[in-house]
């Protein structure tokens, strides 16, 4: 199993990939997931996050099998 990480819009382009899978070992929160792919950097305030397709906070818990998404401010409508 793993944690499936997805990126959208400008963040997807910046990252150069739309998704990736991470080992859940040591990843307890959304913030931990971000740090795992950004060399320990803090999740920037202007980015939003979701766990299993529901809005979440950096301190929201994650577990094996979760889908975690990061994206910029939304601009629909």
């Amino acid at each position, binding site marked *: 199993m793993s944690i499936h990480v*997805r990126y*959208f*819009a*400008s963040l997807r382009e910046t990252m150069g990939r739309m998704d990736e899978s991470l080992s859940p070992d040591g990843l307890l929160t959304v913030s931990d997931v971000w740090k795992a792919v950004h060399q320990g950097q803090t999740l920037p305030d202007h980015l939003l996050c*979701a766990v299993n*397709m*529901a*809005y979440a906070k950096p301190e929201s818990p994650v577990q094996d099998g979760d889908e975690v*998404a990061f*994206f*910029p*401010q*939304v*601009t*629909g*409508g």
Partner: protein
Amino acid sequence: MEIQLFETPYDPYALLRDFEMAPDHPGSHLGAASLFIGTMRDFNEGEAVESLWLEHYPGMTERELQKIAQEVRQTTPFERGLIVHRVGHITPGDTIVLIGTWSCHRAEAITATSKIVEALKHRAPFWKKEQRGEKNHWVERNTPGSVA
């Protein structure tokens, strides 16, 4: 709440007619319908915009729209609702979003539609990328909804 996402252009007026003509639409006691139709402009921030790419988060987008409708319904009861949104490649004049609510009286319908529009703008996971001549860029934020 009925949610529809389209990858190709749609006619909002045809959709509304079909929605109101459907057998499950209890039209006889619904005295009010309030509609919002958002169309792609050919300009933004003083520059011509040739087209838009509208990205979304399949699955979460639909869930968030349902959640918005449920939350609005708790404070502003309406009987029926419709949200339609384009995704993909969009050109000026295309309808991007159609929001409609139906209720017994006008106050609930007008208020519910307005609340859904604003919540969609701030919460539903859609992202616009504008094509301006040879350049393209992601829109960073929506325009304010207030006219005050």
